[in-house]
């Protein structure tokens, strides 16, 4: 019996044990706290941020951190703290869109590939090989640049480079589940392929995919920020952390706070996702249990 199927059958107790493990791991709790804080900040940004993230105030240009502006101000006199706070919304939106879309597309293609096998499988896997043959960032840059630099196109580019991972993980799972008795039973009972795939196979192969998705969240944030930093993602004056560091770079010599705080926000967010991702992997996939 495979561990994930067993886990599915006795879901209640497994979940309770999993939560217990999460609670005992201090690093995982730190990760969880960071992610919860990110979501809270993003949701309540208008109430938390002391100033508007985009309102220009040239009299307050490039002011160092102070009580009025804890993170200082940028070259247009905007409050950097408020921009970092609003930036969490942009980051969260990217995460949800990229991971949601890749999860959907990748899982569907992996399901089809693994279930039908044959030439469908061969074609889909060769296509995913090709996408994996490029260093991810380079391919994302090329696609984003060709479509025209914007946040939306950067998201499209990231979905394009990310789906093969989910397709592969799902396919691997499907292959090992396809031959198990309950699938044969469903088939004998006359269930359609679609029904077997969605009702019997998908629920049993979803947890490694969820693990992969949680582990990827941090990388999605990093890639999005890098694309914006290079100029192929969010465009200024959007309060996006990577784009803020990119503009701040021109003021590095005398105004250190400009790049420091948005960059710190990226580091802490990615760290939160990574710590949480490790914990989720340990909980859902005991075979891969390896400490950070």
């Amino acid at each position, binding site marked *: 019996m495979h561990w994930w199927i067993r886990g599915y059958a006795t879901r209640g107790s497994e979940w309770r044990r999993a939560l217990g493990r999460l609670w005992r791991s201090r*690093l995982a709790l730190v990760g969880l706290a960071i992610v919860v804080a990110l979501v809270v900040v993003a949701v309540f940004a208008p109430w938390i941020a002391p100033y508007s993230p985009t309102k220009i105030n040239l009299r307050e240009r490039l002011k160092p951190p102070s009580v009025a502006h804890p993170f200082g101000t940028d070259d247009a006199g905007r409050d950097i703290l408020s921009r970092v706070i609003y930036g969490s919304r942009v980051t969260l939106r990217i995460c949800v869109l990229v991971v949601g879309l890749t999860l959907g597309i990748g899982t569907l293609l992996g399901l089809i590939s693994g279930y039908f096998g044959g030439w469908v499988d061969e074609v889909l896997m*060769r*296509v995913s*090989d*090709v*996408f994996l*043959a*490029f*260093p*991810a*960032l*380079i*391919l994302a*840059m*090329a*696609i984003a*640049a*060709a*479509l*025209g630099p914007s946040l939306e196109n950067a998201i499209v580019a990231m979905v394009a480079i990310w789906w093969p991972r989910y397709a592969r993980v799902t396919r691997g799972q499907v292959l090992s589940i396809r031959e198990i008795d309950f699938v044969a039973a469903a088939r004998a009972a006359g269930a359609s392929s679609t029904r077997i795939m969605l009702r019997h196979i998908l629920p049993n192969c979803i947890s490694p995919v969820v693990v992969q998705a949680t582990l990827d969240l*941090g990388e999605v944030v*990093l890639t999005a*920020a*890098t694309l914006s*930093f*290079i*100029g*192929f993602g969010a465009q200024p004056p959007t309060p996006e952390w*990577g784009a803020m*560091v*990119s503009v701040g*770079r021109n003021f*590095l*010599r005398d105004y*250190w706070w400009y*790049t*420091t705080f948005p*960059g710190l926000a*990226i*580091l802490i967010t*990615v*760290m939160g996702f*990574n*710590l949480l991702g490790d914990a989720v992997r340990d909980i859902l996939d005991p075979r891969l249990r*390896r*400490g*950070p």
Partner: protein
Amino acid sequence: MLAFFIARRLLLLVPTLLGVLLITFLISHIVPGDAAQLIAGPRATPEIIQRIRQEYGLDKPLHIQFAIYLGQVLRGDLGKSIRTRRPVGADIRAFFPATFELTTTAMLLAVLLGIPLGVISAVYRDRLPDHLSRVFSVIGVSMPIFWLGLLLLFLFYIRLGILPGPGRISGDPPAHITGLYLFDSLLTGNWRALGDAALHLVLPSFTLAFAVLARITRMTRSSMLEALAQDYVRTARAKGLHERWVVVRHGLRNALIPTLTVIGLSYGELLGGAVATELIFAWPGMTHYVVGSMTSLDFPAVMGVTLVIAIIYITVNLLVDITYALVDPRIRY
């Protein structure tokens, strides 16, 4: 047997490479707007644009264009850059050594520091060195490379002034032999250039190495822990072998196999990370060149560089697979 394995792997590369070519081709043809107009510049007359369209084959159907492109690439012709007006191949040859020098130094740094760190971490499991190295690796894999580069530049160049700033060298580069400054200055006995180029490499290569270093440390630690828990390690200890000998011969040797995979996979990350690093440190490398080409929609250059980078990445992964098969006799595909 090994030769058969390598031949099979090489054969499997053919469809992948064709796919890579198709993707680079398609990407450069989703460029919004009229490519011929772009090449001709804003003041071109309709006749000139028409002539350019013919010259670049842009008036032909897409599949014919792809066939022409394929033929050119197979002959080693990557086309002419719109921005620099030079053959893309020549541009790549000019910018490649800087990237190669940077990524290789970074990889060496990551391997030479990461493996010992991982071993120390595993040997001192759950004690202070282990905690420190684990915190370091969590930060390392979460660090935005571009931000780390800016921090280091600010601290060591702007504030402390103990390391040189952007660029590969101050003053004249060494006589051109390979284009690798360290190598060229060694060959020509140009000690000033050697020292200067080495100092210029410190910040960018460390910036680039950081994430990979963290990943290697992490992987070495966990595979060391696994190896040290094996029965043969207990046997070796029971035999009374020296602990250091046990760690290195019985632990590390077996732990290196998973680490090797991480190194191979990380090479792609290094090439990606080189983009931000070269940008920040004004490093005249291939990725610096390609960002410029992408910004100005210079599609022959984008296609050429993307293709070359993909080939490098594929080759490195192939080498890792072969090494894998060499060091672990159980692996045969």
